[in-house]
């Protein structure tokens, strides 16, 4: 177990490092520089700014310096979007809102998706299964921005009797402000989980041990919830890792549509503005978070499925 965990942690660190490399060289490969605005400042100013932020040095040196600072917990300062503000500060300010949204979305997706999937599997071939199947396929086919915009038009648009929810997000609106964004963010994962649960549930139901359980004379409920569900949940748990990544990145769109001042909206801005340290900081932070979630899911997966022998490295 320990050996396996260590191995996975090392892999995770490597992944984050690779992401950092890709990001660093990509953003530096992009033409232009952070100082380009409507009025391009004179070359002397640009040189001075470059020198101030260490952008005049060769790339490998910059990279090495950045990584060194990073290890010491220094993410640098924003050089454009929020001038001279420490990147970590910005992340700490913006991330909790994104995380809140994400957690709520994941929660409702799992809480609704798993039972729906079970229901569909149990009623396989019946009308309700067909309906759920189409609805869930629709759910995974609707891009987040479509759902978000349509909801915005319906609930915050011209028809006043439907205006239950505020159109733009502000903390003052309390829980009502969260409902629409959470719904949008969670819709795709919910439908995906329902589909996944249905298919893995059917897989489990067709297993021989379910036949054994039936032959033992167990009640249907016990067969479904004890024998089939636990096995069926293994793929669903595996999906939780990618799901985290999805909600974080899907959050970008939802944050844009609803005008939520979260990290995602901010990240897109910083990419467009070429705010180097801010891009690096955000990417590394998000990547670490996602990779960490993947790691947790992996370890959890080994706990749920006793067949996997951790001592042998999980193979």
């Amino acid at each position, binding site marked *: 177990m320990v050996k396996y965990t260590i191995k996975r942690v090392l892999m995770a660190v490597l992944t984050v490092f*690779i992401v950092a490399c890709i990001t660093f060289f990509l*953003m530096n*490969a*992009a033409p232009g520089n952070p100082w380009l605005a409507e009025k391009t400042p004179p070359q002397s100013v640009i040189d001075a700014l470059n020198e101030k932020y260490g952008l005049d040095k060769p790339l490998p040196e910059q990279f090495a310096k950045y990584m060194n600072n990073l290890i010491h917990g220094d993410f640098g300062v924003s050089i454009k979007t929020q001038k001279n503000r420490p990147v970590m500060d910005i992340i700490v300010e913006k991330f909790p809102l994104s995380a809140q949204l994400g957690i709520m979305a994941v929660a409702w997706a799992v809480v609704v998706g798993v039972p729906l999937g079970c229901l569909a599997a149990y009623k396989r071939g019946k009308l309700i299964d067909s309906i759920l199947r189409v609805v869930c396929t629709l759910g995974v*086919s609707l*891009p987040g921005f479509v759902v978000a*915009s349509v909801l915005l038009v319906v609930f915050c*648009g011209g028809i006043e009797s439907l205006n239950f929810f505020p159109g733009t997000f502000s903390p003052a609106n309390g829980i009502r402000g969260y409902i629409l964004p959470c719904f949008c963010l969670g819709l795709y994962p919910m439908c995906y989980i329902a589909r996944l649960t249905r298919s893995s549930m059917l897989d489990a139901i067709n297993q021989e041990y379910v036949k054994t359980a039936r032959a033992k004379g167990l009640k249907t409920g016990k067969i479904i919830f004890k024998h089939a569900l636990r096995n069926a949940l293994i793929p669903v748990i595996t999906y939780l890792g990618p799901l985290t990544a999805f909600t974080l990145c899907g959050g970008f769109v939802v944050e844009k549509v609803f005008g939520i001042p979260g990290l995602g909206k901010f990240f897109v801005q910083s990419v467009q503005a070429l705010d180097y340290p801010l891009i690096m900081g955000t990417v590394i932070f998000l990547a670490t978070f996602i*990779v960490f979630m993947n790691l947790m899911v992996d370890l959890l997966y080994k706990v749920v499925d006793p067949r996997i022998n951790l001592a042998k490295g999980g193979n």
Partner: protein
Amino acid sequence: MADKKVKHSPIGSLQPKIDDILEWNNLDFTPATKEEKEDFIQQRKSVSYWRDAWRRLRKNTVAMVAMCVLIVIVLFGFLGPVLVPYGYEEFNKGAENLHPWHYTLEDQARVNAVIEERTGSAALDPEEAVAQAIAEAEAKGETLSAVQQAKIRANAKAAAEKAATEGSEGLSTKEEDVRAELGVKAKLGGYSNNELQRIANGEKVFPHLFGTDKFGRDIMVRVMIGTRVSMIVGVCAALLVLVIGALYGSISGYAGGMVDTVMQRIVEVIYSIPEVLVILLLAAMLSPVIQEYSSSGGLLSGLTTVLGANLISMFIAFGILYWVGMSRIIRGQVLQIKQQEYVTAARALGASSGRIIRRHLLPNCIGQIVVTTCLQIPSAIFLESFLSFLGVGVNAPMTSLGSMASEALQGLYSYPYRLLFPAIILSVMILSFNLFGDGLRDALDPRLKK
């Protein structure tokens, strides 16, 4: 026949009495010939894998409907722009901000007459006022500058609004109310007044079925072009993923051993990279580079100009990151098939690697490959629209469904259909691909059918 006679028998239903049998007189106890034996069994027609799959697919109503919808969408995207006489970046002057419906000139006149009556003064339509002013100016031999025109327009608008709010006798002078009062109904298809006039003059004018945007561009043509772009992106990305994934996966699975281990480590790392994050970066960062390249006139610059810089960077992103899932599936299949006895048997008989791959591995993987590729298309379209929506997808002169939706966000409340049309087409397209892919999976691999 035997069944009827045995009800009294204690054991099985097939237990007649010998006496009864004796009464049957056509018992032929002569040996049967070989031919007779062979004729005896009506062999089921053996059906090829593809024909069998096609039969199953045809029975799947949902998949067939999805396929028809897809064909319609393809026609819409590829044939539509040819049939509609507007270009997707053509500014139709005088036809800005049209709704997908119109009122006939007569109805408009009726409505205006009523409003005029109620407000006591003629509330000129801004455009009419401008036209009038131009006519007057021309009569004097002068031309009006754009600024002057705008001024006149603004004045007329203000006057109209003023008139609208100050209705006399408590009767509404709002256009909508008057229309409702007079029972004036909107007609399908957007026409500007100018175009309506041309129709009245006997010209044939194609309607703006989906309306126009603020530049007077026909939304339907733009949706068609967007559909085409999304479709092409989806299919090309899926093919790209297929080629890279299939090659990588089959090499890794077939080679096994050390090669496999190393290749799988690479896959693991790529797999855990948050792909959307990197794609976002790639799309944003690479496109200026490619733009530069295409203007530099290099060897492939023609190609890059046609596709647009963002599209290419998206393909690169796909090529770098998205093949991982496909390669895993293919590798799993190859590993599984490699262990099958018939492959061992073929190897024992001295078949070469090439022959084993051609004769055994490929035919057995092909179903999975087709299905995965088919399901890759909607996810590519999904991602393209996602990126376009965030503004790092398809470049400006080109359009895509995602970027149209993004543009439509500005006037969302007044022109919701600008979002709705591309959104509906996009969703229906992805839905149909998904449903068709599901159907295909069920048809190609009956064991997977749930």
